[in-house]
């Protein structure tokens, strides 16, 4: 068996250099990739109840879940997209049906839904959001609040046509 003339050190250096180049964005892609689609977060789908009804607000409100929905590639805002939202709040647990609701994006691709104050559950104050309507790839998000005292939480979707 003949030994390769490429030493291990050369390979390591070449690998590290290519990694650095890729990370720093110095490579020129064959075509402009545009806006990358959002990938689902770990645990995002936990306690999901498909088909939550579109509501004016979940429970008594007082806390604002908001964000934007855009199309992958060109970043165009998407109107009328249904976003489902749920969390452990002052009014119910994540699993309870009354903790779930849905809303639609406006012409600017913006959605807002009032809901009860999110309280820490399973160690973190967090919310859940889902896009699961079929026209685009399904995405589950699980944003975490900076502070349990926050009165709002944002989450943004970039959707890939299915």
């Amino acid at each position, binding site marked *: 068996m003949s030994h390769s003339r490429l030493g291990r050190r050369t390979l390591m250096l070449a690998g590290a250099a290519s990694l650095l180049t890729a990370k720093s964005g110095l490579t020129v892609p064959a075509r402009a990739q545009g806006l990358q689609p959002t990938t689902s*977060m*770990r*645990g995002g*789908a*936990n*306690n999901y109840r498909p088909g939550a009804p579109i509501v004016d607000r979940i429970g008594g409100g007082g806390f604002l879940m908001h964000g934007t929905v855009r199309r992958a590639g060109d970043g165009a805002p998407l109107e009328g997209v249904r976003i489902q939202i749920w969390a*452990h*709040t*002052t*009014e119910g*647990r*994540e*699993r309870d049906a009354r903790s779930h609701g849905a809303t639609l994006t406006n012409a600017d691709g913006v959605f807002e839904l009032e809901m009860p104050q999110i*309280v*820490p*559950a*399973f*160690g*973190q*104050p967090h919310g859940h959001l889902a896009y699961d309507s079929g026209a685009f790839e399904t995405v589950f998000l*699980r944003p975490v609040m900076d502070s*349990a005292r926050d009165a709002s939480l944002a989450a943004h979707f970039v959707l890939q046509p299915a």
Partner: protein
Amino acid sequence: MTLKHLRAVIAWGGLATLIMIPIAVAANSEYLQYRGPIYIAAGFAGIVALAVLLVQPLLAAGLLPRLPIQLGRVVHRWSGLVLLLAIAAHVVGLWITSPPDMIDALTFRAPTLFSVFGVVGMWALLAAALLAAIRKKRWLRPQVWRFSHVFAASAIVAASVSHAMLIEGTMGALSKAALCAAVLCALIWTVWQVKPWRGVRRRQNSRR
């Protein structure tokens, strides 16, 4: 009151305070009103387990004043059983509260780092308990057994303290930090006292 008495009173009083304050703070947490009874019980089982971790090494090494080591070891075995039951209640209670979150944690797929620490601590606890169960069978030399048990115990403490500190729950931040620091100090002090690495390797020249 002699100096010895005073030392015992301070030591036992200090331990009781370190344990009781976090429990009292948790019992008054505003989050309890938003949780069901099983979730609340599971949370307190975790706090009880952390509290047991504080006394467990001290009992085993006979470092508590006015408690002979023989009696300490007996208590250590029973409190070890309490620890196992508390962690079982913690895991089962949280599983009932939110099955997908607990399944994610147990399979190391959870998004939260404290879940990883919690599950690592649970496995370390099972290892320590298993060692305790086979101690009398003498499959391991006493020195090797002791080193293994202390090693598992150290993993339990390191993982549990990390788990507790990263969690935003019912325990007060300050009292939780104090209890965690005490748990860590109790372990380090005990390990330093018993030096479990002694005699683990057989001496080269010994004739057996």
